[in-house]
């Protein structure tokens, strides 16, 4: 197996793919948004319970490749307890990682996604859940679609 592929499917990603965290509908959710990747059929719904501006609870549901499912799973562990501004800032870091491969200065599990940058077709898989989460935070009822984003 090539170094690129090992980098793409890091242990952290495989683990989240096999044992997704916070998966399923959130009964107490007061925000929900859905994301679609029309080019491959990946789907992801993100459920939030907002307490003021803070994400008190978060879950995701959907189907897709290992990259999209692991990314959404890991995202839920990162976003719990964050404000919308903090969530946006985390997404910006994540986007930087998956598009450039540059790992963040702080040690973080999201660095596992650095390998995605050598597979441009998979960037949309990695960002699908994040787009849905940001839309849910904005209260945007329109489904997120990877095709309307400029990544």
């Amino acid at each position, binding site marked *: *197996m090539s170094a690129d592929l090992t980098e*793409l*499917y890091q242990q952290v990603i495989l683990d989240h793919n096999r044992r997704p965290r916070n998966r399923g509908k959130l009964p107490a959710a007061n925000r929900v948004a859905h994301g679609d990747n029309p080019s*491959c*059929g*990946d789907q992801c719904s993100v459920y939030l319970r907002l307490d003021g501006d803070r994400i008190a609870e978060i879950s995701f549901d959907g*189907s*897709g490749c*290992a990259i999209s499912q692991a990314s959404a799973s890991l995202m839920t562990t990162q976003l719990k307890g964050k404000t919308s501004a903090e969530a946006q800032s985390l997404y910006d870091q994540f986007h930087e990682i998956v598009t450039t491969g540059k790992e963040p200065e702080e040690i973080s599990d999201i660095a596992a996604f650095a390998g995605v940058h050598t597979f441009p077709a998979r960037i949309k898989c990695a960002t699908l859940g994040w787009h849905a989460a940001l839309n849910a935070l904005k209260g945007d009822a329109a489904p997120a679609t990877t095709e309307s984003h400029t990544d």
Partner: protein
Amino acid sequence: MLDPQKIRADFPILHQLVNGKPLVYLDNGATSQKPRAVIDALVHYYERDNSNVHRGLHALSMRATDAYEGARARIATFLHAADPAEIIFTRGTTESINIVARSFGTRLKPGDVILTTEMEHHSNLVPWQQAAKAGGATLRYVPVLGANAEGGLDLAALDQLLTPQVKVFAFTHISNTLGTINPVAELCRRARAVGAITVIDAAQSVGHAPLDVQALGCDYLAFSGHKMCGPTGIGVLYGRRALLEKLAPDETGGGMVVNVTYEGATWKPAPERFEAGTPNIAGAIGLGVACDYLDALGRAAIERHDHALARLAYEKLSVLPGIRLLGPAGERGGLVSFAFPDLHAHDVVTFADEDGIALRGGHHCNQPLMRKLGLTSTTRASFYVYNTAEEIDVLVASLRRTLKFFVG
């Protein structure tokens, strides 16, 4: 018998390494590769004959016109159409179907029915949804049978579905997702009995098997050049002449008019009526050469080769743990579509790519069928004249490696 090793010499693109491995191109359902003869025809046209067609009186324009109209006649022969005027050049299958569907959209009324099937590609589905909406008509579907769609179309249900209210029956010849070969001649015969117009999506069949539009008895037939060794951006709408004469133009503009005043215009007959603007001249010429290439190989031989590879692939894949194979277990078109539990098609395709294998993973423009089968995506291997039995072994070995990595 085709000799794929000999045929491979005709396709320059096949002789390369991908990720350090010899290219194994199994994405022919999406687009086929192009033989040297087709590539040379494009170069020759642009280097020697490039000019606009139909309107020029100079030597180059006459050469270009002769080559373009020659391609039309060649394709008419390829389909065994009664008349070259029944061949309309389009951008591809999608545009061909849209031309027919839009014309129905203006003629249908509430109570009318458009009939199609549950296995259609979006290109033979969405245009009919739009036509039904435009005319207030109802869209109905012939069901697909079996948990893995192995049973094909529910022909018994056709008796109830094919009523005199059905104005058009649109169906695929070979399913791009399932490999199912539909009994198109029978479907045309039964549609004709209730006065319905038939539209065949031949995108996956025309370059893979002998095809005779008169023997099939279809009214319209649509296909793309690029899936049959031709260039991209060129396709064909075949229509029976009597119907084309009554069909309103779809796009209007230069080249399709007889007389234009400030008040209005009159239309040329088919095929020009449907070819407004400068057509894809090089594409049409390239497609004509692709017809020559395929006929030189022999389409009956191509059919035997593709079907044999698909059966072999089905058999070899069927032993992989957990695999779910879609479509018929017996005779099938030249493709196999499959899914694994807990392993997404994208991950399969990424791993195969690492082994130099080009596969397709996704919903194959077939979202409603995927939903019906409880799937979001499948992986598809699709075969053509240059594929070999050894390449199927490479595929199976790659899939075993992927399964080991993800499933253990």
